[in-house]
């Protein structure tokens, strides 16, 4: 292609973009819409500010920044990389792909303006975050000093630009996408370890050597040598931006077509409040896995068919087991290390519910296509639902029991905790699994009639909001109350040095009763209509 033809194609790309800009329907807000947005934004901002203030325990201090800042930025960067595996900072609509990316114009000519725009938006967001942090940091810019404040803004802007550029580098490379997908669970665990380490050290030198996430925090925290950190993050941001710009021609139409189709699917699911549909759309957007499929010997007894099918599903999608293990272990450690405290008990119950949810995927698949299981297995639906609970219950029991043993061995919990394994652990796990299964039975879609009723509720009536929450997450709430309650009963006895045995009996009775009620509800469940 000659230089003249290249320039001509670039001009044509500009003309086409101008044509589309001129004809796009522009949103022109009315004065009332601007006013309402400002009022709602102000209220939401104040509430968010209060929530942040409470979460960090008062004002933002340099020490808190050193403890939490690098970890938060580390997670932001990881999220940006993960986003690049299925969306990323450069996106086109299906129509753009069909009309523009199939035109005889270099794809880079369309990618570059979108990348520039994303980098700019990233920079603005970075500056805004830095501004808020400076304001929160011990009373405003005056306390930080002008030079350090400027350094903080530059550092955060550079970090945001680095995140956007890195996200595009992942988006534009199939190999990088695969690498990020495979590595991110391990990196997430490393992030959690980082948080644990940083919470127990003074952290003065930590932010400087930790990497871009630490360099960006250094001027805000006022660590010694923060100008060096700012210089380092600037170099990293500049290098990644140059690399990103060089790769504007690296992605083909397929990358953008797949992302456009995913966005359309997600929008359609969101519009109909179909979160199962949204999950399936998201999953279909991830690159397909390669390699040999795991096999499990077929059982002879027909009653083991579902257990066999679930084991096969779990082995073929080991990430579900990984996430379930992560959540269940975290729940166990949280409950054991913070006995008798309401929020940790609730958090542990929620995490256990999510662990059970990860393991309930085969049941959800049966509910997505109920006719399939009806044809393959002539079982009543209730029997199918309960059969699908067996493997998750066994797996969760094994994980939580192992975590209890490990926690006791590490000295983070007393040896008495081992007594939980043969007593209350099984009913607690079964409650979580049954609740997750009953939630899966609902199919992840909003009933239109019920939605209509909910929308007709008076928004000023707090009862209406409570009904909405109850309807949206009834089984999560049930798990939180039952499992959290049982943990709290035992934990309180431990924390207040009372006799644990009576508390364990109460918790056991509570969990067993709940199990019986939930099993009865499960036995009464019917095959969903599709």
């Amino acid at each position, binding site marked *: *292609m000659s230089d003249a033809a*290249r320039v*001509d*194609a670039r001009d*044509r790309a500009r*003309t*086409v973009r101008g*044509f*589309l800009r001129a*004809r*796009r*329907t522009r949103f022109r807000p009315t004065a009332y819409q601007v006013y309402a947005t400002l009022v709602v934004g102000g209220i939401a901002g104040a509430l968010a500010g209060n929530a942040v203030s409470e979460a960090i325990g008062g004002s933002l201090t340099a020490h808190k920044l050193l403890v939490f800042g690098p970890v938060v930025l580390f997670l932001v960067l990881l999220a940006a990389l993960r986003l690049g595996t299925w969306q990323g900072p450069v996106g086109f*609509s*299906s*129509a753009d*792909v*069909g*009309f*523009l990316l*199939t*035109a*005889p*114009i*270099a*794809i*880079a000519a369309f990618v570059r303006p979108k990348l520039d725009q994303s980098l700019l938006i990233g920079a603005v967001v970075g500056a805004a975050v830095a501004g808020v942090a400076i304001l929160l940091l011990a009373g405003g810019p005056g306390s930080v000093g002008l030079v350090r404040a400027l350094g903080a803004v530059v550092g955060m802007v550079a970090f945001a630009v680095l995140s956007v550029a890195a996200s595009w580098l992942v988006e534009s490379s199939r190999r990088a996408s695969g690498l990020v997908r495979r590595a991110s669970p391990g990196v997430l665990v490393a992030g959690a370890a980082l948080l644990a380490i940083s919470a127990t050290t003074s952290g003065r030198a930590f932010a400087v050597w930790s990497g871009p996430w630490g360099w960006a925090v250094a001027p805000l925290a006022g660590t010694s040598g923060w100008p060096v950190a700012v210089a380092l993050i600037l170099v990293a941001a500049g290098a990644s931006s140059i690399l990103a710009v060089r790769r504007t*021609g690296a992605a*083909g*139409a*397929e990358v953008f*077509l797949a992302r456009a189709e995913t966005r359309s699917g997600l929008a359609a699911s969101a519009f109909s409040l179909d979160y199962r549909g949204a999950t399936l759309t998201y999953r279909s957007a991830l*690159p*397909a*896995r*390669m*390699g040999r*499929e795991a096999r499990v010997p077929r059982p002879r007894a027909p009653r083991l068919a579902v257990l066999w099918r679930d084991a096969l599903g779990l082995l073929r999608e080991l990430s579900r087991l990984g996430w379930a293990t992560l959540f269940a272990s975290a729940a166990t450690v949280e409950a054991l290390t913070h006995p008798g405290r309401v929020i940790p008990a609730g958090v542990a119950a929620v995490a256990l519910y999510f662990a059970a949810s990860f393991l309930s995927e085969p049941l959800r698949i049966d509910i997505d296509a109920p006719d399939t299981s009806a044809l393959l297995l002539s079982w009543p639906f209730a029997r199918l639902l309960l059969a699908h609970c067996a493997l998750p219950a066994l797996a969760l029991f094994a994980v939580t029991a192992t975590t209890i043993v490990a926690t006791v061995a590490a000295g983070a919990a007393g040896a008495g905790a081992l007594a939980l394994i043969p007593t209350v652990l099984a009913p607690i796990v079964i409650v979580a699994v049954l609740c997750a299964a009953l939630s899966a039975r609902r199919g992840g879609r909003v009933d239109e009639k019920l939605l209509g009723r909910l929308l007709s509720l008076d928004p000023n009536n707090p009862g209406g909001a409570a009904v909405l929450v109850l309807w949206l997450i009834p089984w999560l709430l049930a798990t939180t109350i039952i499992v959290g309650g049982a943990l709290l009963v035992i934990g309180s006895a431990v924390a207040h040095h009372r006799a644990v045995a009576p508390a364990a009996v109460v918790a056991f009775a509570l969990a067993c009763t709940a199990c019986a009620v939930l099993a009865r509800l499960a036995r009464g469940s019917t095959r969903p209509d599709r």
Partner: protein
Amino acid sequence: MQGAPLLAVQGLTRRYGGFEALHDLELEVAPGECVAIVGQNGSGKTTAVRTIAGLLEPSGGRVEVAGAAVHTEPSGIEARAAMAVVPDSPALYPDLTVHEHLELVALAHDVARDDLDARIDAMISRLGLSDKRDARPGELSRGMRQKLQIACALIRPHRLLVLDEPVVGLDPASQQTLRELLVEAKRAGVAVMLTTHQLEFARGIADRAVVLADGLVVADGPYDEVVGGGMIEGPESR
């Protein structure tokens, strides 16, 4: 065959994870020739079209249009300049009118500006969209949107025309118009590749039929021999 092929596909393979949707496809389409790709659902037709059109990257093999490789830049730009594609599902801009869609295509493909409006109007009229000249896609039926996609493909300069299930949603009269347009294109030396389930539509247009099953070419030959000779079973043969 009439001269060097405008479309040359060599060993084209496409995998989705461990699943091979298209295996080692070999295909050539000469100027003025029409090849119909037929096969059941899931046989790999749409994968073949999307890969040839450059909308999917091949897992193996090579596609050349007018001697330019489709999947590498800058030769891909030359390939795209020679190829017009009608996708299986219309993807249109919700805020552009029928006329504006064609204007956009003309701009993107550097169509000569002389009498552009008149040519756009003639194309719109030919496809029975005159009443909908200023309508947006939301006001169009499925068939009308399909006709707009066809108009967008035909208004741009092209030497190869690739159509994926072009008659889906079209009424019999529109199918006849499309048939006439394709015959005219062939006469003008355009190479045509189309996929269809409606074997009767392709009869009289397609010179050759390539039958795909599970991503493999199971038959390739003159259309009437392949389709009429019992190698595949069409709805009309039942």
